[in-house]
């Protein structure tokens, strides 16, 4: 693997826990890998499979979804919905030949800046080992649009 390779991760952070955890990590000056690029959503339940696939197709090497701990969701159980959706998504990614480590779901409470920072570090390290996601080679072997397939699949199984 080329030494200079640095993976790019898109992070979907929920407004109430994990985004605040990331804020806290910064406020506490916890240094972690700068590879994660954050996108704020109100709840992890808002993260559609299409967002994840879009990010991967646009060139991200991995996607991190972060929510509140189960039982601590600001919206009662949005994180559980995210978890269910994530399990389905993983199944689909496997079919597409995308390594499991590329899309991860973690819980980080607003007080857990270190948890979020650790998750980013760990994932960055894993992706460095995996190397770049070659969407064209891995996924576009077939010609169906994965995003559309994802939508259909989720609708059926949610």
């Amino acid at each position, binding site marked *: 693997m080329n030494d200079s390779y640095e993976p790019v991760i898109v992070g979907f952070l929920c407004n109430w826990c994990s985004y605040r955890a990331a804020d806290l990590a*910064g406020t506490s000056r916890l240094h972690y890998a700068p590879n994660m690029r*954050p996108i704020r959503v109100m709840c992890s339940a808002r993260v*559609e499979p299409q*967002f994840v696939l*879009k*990010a991967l197709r*646009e*060139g991200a090497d991995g996607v991190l979804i972060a929510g509140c701990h189960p*039982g601590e969701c600001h919206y009662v159980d949005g994180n559980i919905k995210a978890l269910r959706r994530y399990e389905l998504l993983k199944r689909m990614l496997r079919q597409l030949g995308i390594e499991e480590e590329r899309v991860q779901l973690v819980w980080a409470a607003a007080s857990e800046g270190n948890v979020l920072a650790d998750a980013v570090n760990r994932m960055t390290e894993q992706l460095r080992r995996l190397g770049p996601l070659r969407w064209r080679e891995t996924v576009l072997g077939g010609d169906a649009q994965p995003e559309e397939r994802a939508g*259909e699949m989720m609708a059926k199984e949610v």
Partner: protein
Amino acid sequence: MNEERIGVYVCHCGSNIAGTVAVEEVAQWAAKLPNVVVSRDYKFMCSSLGQELVEKDIKELGLTRVVVAACSPHMHERTFRATCERAGLNPFLFEMANIRELDSWATDDRAAATQKAKAMVSAAVRRVVYHQPLQLLPVKINPNTLIVGGGVAGITAALEIANAGYHVYLVEREPSIGGHMAQLDKTFPTLDCSACILTPKMVDVAQNKNITLLSWSQVEAVEGYVGNFTVTVRKKARYVNEEKCTGCGICIEKCPKKVIDEVFEAGLGYRKAIYRPFPQAVPKYPVIDTSNCIFFQRGKCKACQMFCPTDAIDFEQQDQILKLEVGNIILAIGYDTFDPRRIPQYGYGRLANVFTSLEFERMVNAAGPTGGRIVLRDGVTTPKSVAIIHCVGSRDKNYNEHCSRICCMYSLKFSHLLHERLPDAQVYEFYIDIRATAKRYEEFYHRVLEEGTRFIRGRVAEVTDAARMPGEEGKLIVQYEDTLIGKQRRLPVDMVILSLGMEARRDSREVAQIFGLGCEYNGFFIERHPKLDPVNTMTEGIQIAGACQGPMAIPEAVAQGAAAAARVLSLISQGTVMMEPVRAHIDADKCSGCRICNNLCPYNAIVFHEDRKVSEVITALCQGCGACVAACPSAAITGAHFTDEQVMAQIEGMLWDVQPQFAMTSMETR
């Protein structure tokens, strides 16, 4: 592609951002992004000069969108929205890129931080194009308030609000209000009689016309949102008619069944099956504990009913379910003490003369089970030596990592009381650190030192009755390291007091669930901001006060009670509250009527119209989580301010520097 005119402002934040991110470079680079008409960097964007810069550009350059790359939106989003509004731009046509907390403070790699800042700015620029003008939603505030928990924090809040002329429902789970404070003998460091200072306030609660006191009651469900909550309360049957009862107490006197009082007397004393926790209880009406009442268990007795002069005993009474309409809620449910049986090496439950701090509070209290005499478990022997063990269940990753903050001080108070009552007894305090950090605390520590208490720095390893040496027979032996001399030692004593730490209520998570709040890992409720918003929660309209937020002493609980009341009063006097317009909306034309969203909504905010076979979001109930938006197979639901196109554009912007993986691999382009 469109005609939006975007202004980009990159903040230095002194050296907070500029120290790590090349802000000028980011600003110059951003100027070339599509639709950007002006891009500037500035020392402090949040300063009035910084804001004026934006206002001026909006007016003079005709900006239609604004992006500020600075700190967290949780810090200054409101500030810059107001800036836009002042210049006549809808505040929601603004987007913030958090290049401080999420970037410059999180790394010291300047090149990477700058690259990440560019990604975040580019994402914001692409996103803001799709922003739509939105209006805050005004909501009317119901002036009634629900307060849960009648300890000192809840009592304080209730009186503040009631005295301001608004109605309060005070719900208390126990038969009387008063909470832990009513159980205490003296308060540190002033040594005020705890009950003497609390009972007048309890009486005020009972007499205040603006307070509806619902003791022996519990909240079962909460619906609605700030300004308009509907609360379901179960008022448990007392089996005593409150209209008729005069509180004379004859029933209690005549009741033949004696039970250990695990709550008010902390297990050290007894009560009857029909009881009032303590003589000054508010309300004064007793309750029947059916699991111990002879009549309820065996169908015979009725002594209380026979002797009641006003015929107030009613064995047929049923629980009542009440529906309360309130605009605000204050949770003040207090704390539980740590259960010392979780640390078997301290012997509580096995060794008779190991007492908990709460037991000791009751013991030294003149109204307590021993009438204030300090005795061993046999009820007669006076101890000659007492060891007080600090940090039981606190500062310990195996139990509670936090410091309970009050134990040092009440332990010192115990020492003082022991010296006062038993001048001949030797008292030992085993501590890790003495934390006497509030007003007049350190002075109190010095006073106890002067009174002759021996302080031993070392966390006790174990308390045992297994004697090794002749002098130890029949005693409790405290084994510890005196860390100041670095030696392991054993100390035989007559009595051991365990200074129990404070924990969240055992059911705090269930309570949080009912009210839709967040709990920390240890069960304490999460405040909106630990420094600047300590009594507010993330849930609009719900405040927290007292030890349910974290360990604290009486003065802080009182201050929080009053602070929460002030928050509520300010909302009530505003009359309406403005809500974020982040809400879902269903496009009836696109809706296929599949109803997937109906069950997903945690607030039952989506209704299905059978006639038209479409679903609709009740805007007032929607909280904007977006779960339905993500799940809709027909893409018929839009989440305002978090629309698909906004997020998709943001993703594209975030990945501006990596090639979409259609043609090349990312390796070749970097």
